[in-house]
């Protein structure tokens, strides 16, 4: 033992030059990927599209207004969906079997039907109900009455179709959030004499937000894209605007690309919003959005280059 140790020790104390690890296959992979990307760009450049027309469309009044309409419908639908979702989630975990059943059937129905079908059903409601009345059933008392066609505008039909579908998903997201909070929190609130309502609104939901926000953010990004289906019921959002312009000048791809750019802008904005919302509900504040993007994307390779340079200098 002693001799082996004696033989090893001078070796470990010797100055041996160390080289950085090598990554030959990374270079190969990078070259192949760049070649493929180049090929895609070259193909698109050679396509029969007037690229110079795409950007002006993005700034065109029709498209700006359509982008605003898209965002308004998405925000309104998501907001209504969250409100209905909270109610449905609370019904779902209620001890009242009727409330529970209603919630289960609601989620089953509105999650099960395709969004497009729901949009068309709402939009065509006038075919089965000529007017919409609000009053006391079985009496002549009517508070409000209007022809269905006047109420069920493309926006209202879009709002109902999108939000009712989304509310079924929100109910499940919120239920999962509530269930994710330790039972001890509820018991502690109850033991202090807090009512069931205060317990859920002041103790459980605020803590469930951390669980609820990430999937809700994803759903909102989905919602922005799903508004494109409202083009079918003549709501002038980005896809319909693109089609309207294209029907006059036949630049179908150019206008669709302009719509696509707008979607990417809206989705990127939503992602940034989601990041800050998540940060607001987590106690440990990490670095800011740009700092963390910088760190994860830019810094490691740079750091590695620096490290290699340092090692090369040794």
């Amino acid at each position, binding site marked *: 033992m002693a001799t082996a140790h004696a033989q090893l020790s001078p070796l470990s104390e010797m100055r041996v030059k160390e080289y950085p690890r090598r990554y030959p296959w990374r270079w190969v992979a990078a070259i192949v990927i760049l070649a493929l990307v180049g090929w895609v760009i070259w193909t698109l450049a050679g396509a029969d599209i007037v690229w110079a027309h795409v950007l002006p469309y993005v700034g065109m009044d029709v498209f700006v207004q359509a982008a605003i309409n898209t965002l308004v419908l998405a925000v309104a639908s998501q907001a209504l969906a969250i409100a209905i979702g909270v109610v449905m989630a609370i019904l779902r975990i209620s001890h009242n079997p009727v409330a529970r059943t209603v919630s289960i059937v609601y989620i089953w129905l509105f999650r099960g039907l395709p969004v497009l079908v729901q949009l068309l059903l709402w939009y065509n409601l006038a075919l089965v109900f000529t007017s919409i009345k609000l009053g006391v059933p079985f009496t002549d008392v009517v508070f409000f009455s209007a022809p269905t066609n006047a109420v069920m505008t493309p926006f209202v039909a879009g709002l109902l179709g999108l939000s009712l579908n989304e509310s079924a998903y929100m109910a499940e997201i919120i239920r999962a959030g509530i269930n994710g909070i330790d039972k001890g*929190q509820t018991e*502690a609130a109850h033991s*202090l*004499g807090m*009512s069931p309502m205060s317990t859920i609104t002041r*103790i459980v939901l*605020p*803590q469930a937000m951390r669980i609820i926000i990430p999937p809700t953010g994803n759903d909102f990004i989905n919602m922005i894209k799903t508004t494109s289906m409202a083009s079918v019921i003549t709501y002038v959002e980005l896809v319909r605007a693109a089609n309207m312009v294209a029907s006059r000048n036949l630049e179908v791809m150019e206008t669709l690309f302009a719509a696509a750019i707008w979607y990417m802008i809206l989705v990127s904005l939503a992602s940034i919003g989601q990041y800050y919302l998540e940060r607001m509900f987590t*106690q440990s504040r990490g670095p800011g959005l740009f700092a963390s993007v910088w760190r994860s994307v830019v810094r490691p390779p740079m750091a590695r280059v620096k490290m290699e340079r340092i090692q090369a200098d040794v």
Partner: protein
Amino acid sequence: MSEAPILREEPLVKIRHVRKSFSGTEVLRDINLDVHRGEVFCLLGASGAGKSTLLRAINRLETVDGGEIWVDGMRIGYGAHRDGVRALSEREMAGQRRHIGMVFQRFNLFGHMTALENVAEAPRVVLHRPAESARREAMRLLADVGLAEKAHQHPGELSGGQQQRVAIARALAMKPSLMLFDEPTSALDPELVGEVLNVMTELARGGMTMIVVTHEMSFARDVADRVAFMHHGEVVETATPDEFFTRPAHERARQFLARTDMGAAARRRPAR
């Protein structure tokens, strides 16, 4: 039961013929106990003896299958209705629970609030105290448990012992007439047990009525006025700590004590 005939006012807590089963297993069998105002009462026994279930039944975090529990003249879980009584809703139960403080094994502090907000929350929401006076009172309570400088920290930034002290302050903020402790030191690292027991001892000296489920035999011996020993859902022995730790009457109690440090100490003592 070897209850001494204490001639005092009406007991603060009266437990009469309380029974409970979990899916066929009886966890509480005909429990009868009195706890008097200002008394510190320790519930002892092995795990699964029913101590925690009994404690949780006192503020109805656990319902019971039979019997009655009275606290400070309230029949727990029931209110007067016509010529009889009616089970209370959860909402109505809140009115009874606010007079009974509870401290949990796992602290259960509200994770999204600072220590100060944890303590001030219930007085504000339940008693509708103005925010400023609730905060001032909360600050005073935190100072009492030695945590004034931690007032603005979140539970995640506090040690277990500190969290449990905040939890005690939080329960006291409701000015309860009875405090329940459900194994308050069982989830703590050994070196943090002392600080929590000190706060509890201080509270006991102040005259608070306390029912404590604990495995801390030294606390039971030094601080309790009476102890009850539970085994398989029954209270098999109620005694003063002196009697219980030196001459346990029941065979099961002797076996239980033999397995604790206290029992070992008691066995060694005569030999010296």
